């Protein structure tokens, strides 16, 4: 693993915050090397707009620190496709006058389709259904979120191809996580 001074996490809400924090800890990243941007909105339903608004500024800060800082971004695709959500992030960079994200930059986009609960469900051995909206998933316990993070960390450690029934957006996020892990 490339040793970096810190990983900054930009995410939608508390649940994804703790999920990504635990994932990083499972990959033996020290608690003092993880910084989660915690000023996500108190009101539900504003998470993706918040990430979009904050994204360009966080990329700029990450780039100013060069290789000593990585950025892990979580944003749900919601009703959009994963490609469209990724395009929205790219547009935010462009609007901010910044260059496109390069393939070798430690900036990772974790974009579940439709919501991160689809990933948690799959990681907890439930059928992968990426079209199901957030309301359609059970309210996972913090223990389930934790086990899901452990399972994803195990999958990311493996060099084998991932199961064919894994959610497509999760499989597509694999090289994204590898940018920062």
């Amino acid at each position: 693993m490339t040793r970096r001074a810190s990983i900054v996490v930009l995410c939608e809400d508390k649940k994804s915050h703790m999920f990504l924090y635990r994932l990083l800890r499972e990959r033996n990243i020290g608690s003092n090397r993880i910084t989660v941007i915690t000023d996500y909105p108190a009101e539900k339903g504003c998470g993706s707009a918040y990430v979009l608004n904050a994204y360009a500024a966080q990329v700029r800060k990450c780039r100013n620190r060069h290789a000593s800082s990585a950025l892990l971004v979580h944003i749900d695709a919601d009703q959009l496709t994963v490609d469209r959500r990724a395009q929205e992030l790219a547009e935010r960079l462009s609007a901010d006058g910044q260059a496109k994200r390069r393939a070798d930059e430690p900036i990772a986009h974790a974009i579940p389709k439709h919501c991160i609960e689809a990933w948690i469900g799959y990681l907890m051995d439930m059928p992968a259904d990426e079209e199901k909206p957030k309301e359609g998933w059970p309210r996972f316990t913090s223990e389930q979120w934790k086990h899901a993070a452990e399972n994803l960390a195990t999958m990311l450690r493996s060099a084998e191809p991932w199961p064919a029934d894994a959610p497509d957006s999760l499989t597509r996020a694999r090289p994204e996580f590898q940018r920062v892990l």
Partner: protein
Amino acid sequence: MLKRLYVDNFRCLVDFDYQPQAVQLLIGQNGSGKSSVFDVLDSLAHFARRPSAGCALFPSRTLCKWDGRATQTFQLDVELGDFVAHYALELEHLVEPGLAQVTTERLADDEGTLFQVVGGKLALGSEQRAEFLVGQSQSAIWHDKASACPRIRLFREWLQATTVLRLNPYAEADKAVSADEFLQRDGSNFAGWYRRLQDAHRQVLEPLASDLAEVIDGFAGLNSFKPEARYIIQSLVRCGGENAKGLPFGWSELSEGQRTLIVIYAVMHAAKAGKPFLLCLDEPDNFVALREMQPLVHMIEEFVDEGHIQVLIASHHPEFINMWGHEQSALLYRQDAGHTELKTFPPRDTGMLSPAEIIARGWEND
């Protein structure tokens, strides 16, 4: 786990009914009653310990100044494995000689009374005729007859272990005269408390040192020894890299922030070694550097999630407010400097604002 706290006529807490979560942040302006909640829990914990100052833990100045009644009531509902304990304590404050006395003390489970004291007479279970005279200045929870009941003992152990910390690193001595079971609220007896932890729960020392090494540069461990009649605590710090030998540093040679972190981390790890207990942290962010704040809040969240401990926190710090302000906070509020009320937080229609921003703008009471 504490499921409910009811307080009536204690400072600004009048008919105050609070149902805490496994981890919860108490937020509110200065003087809103956060510390009073912790003071009640601290006094009840000391009331159940031995030796106890008894009713002197509830001096007359703790009566609500504008209420006028002389009776104070405290109730706890505590989930203890397969049952819920319901504890009630009622005190009457006497004009002469200015002390309080127990008028009623009762512990019950969902099936009925476990013990009850009324007018200085103790009755056990449903055997109302089996009465024993007890004093009215102390808890009867230690009475030999009460101690025979496993559920009473379980509740007593939980209440005794309730720990309220308002740390004052300047009060913490590097020496202690005894190995202490309970940590004082200001952390002043940490040397003696740590000695007991070291003797009784050695298995937590290594993970404790490992966690602390992530937030304190070079930290290699704590050591407590007894050269003469006193326990002395030292910190070992590797100065000059990971492979350097740990050098002993006296407790007072550490910074206030380092000492604060060590005490909180040690208490959290102690929870892993024994039964779950309630920890109340009153402004734990004092003295702690901003960079050390997230590891601290993450550790609290993880330990609570694993079921080792219940933590109530009073803090004005944005890191704490944003961590628990979304769904795990209780807003304490006093209308026109009257008694404390609980309000839902965060309020509606705050758009993109984070919980800390809502507080900073003073919009929490909207």
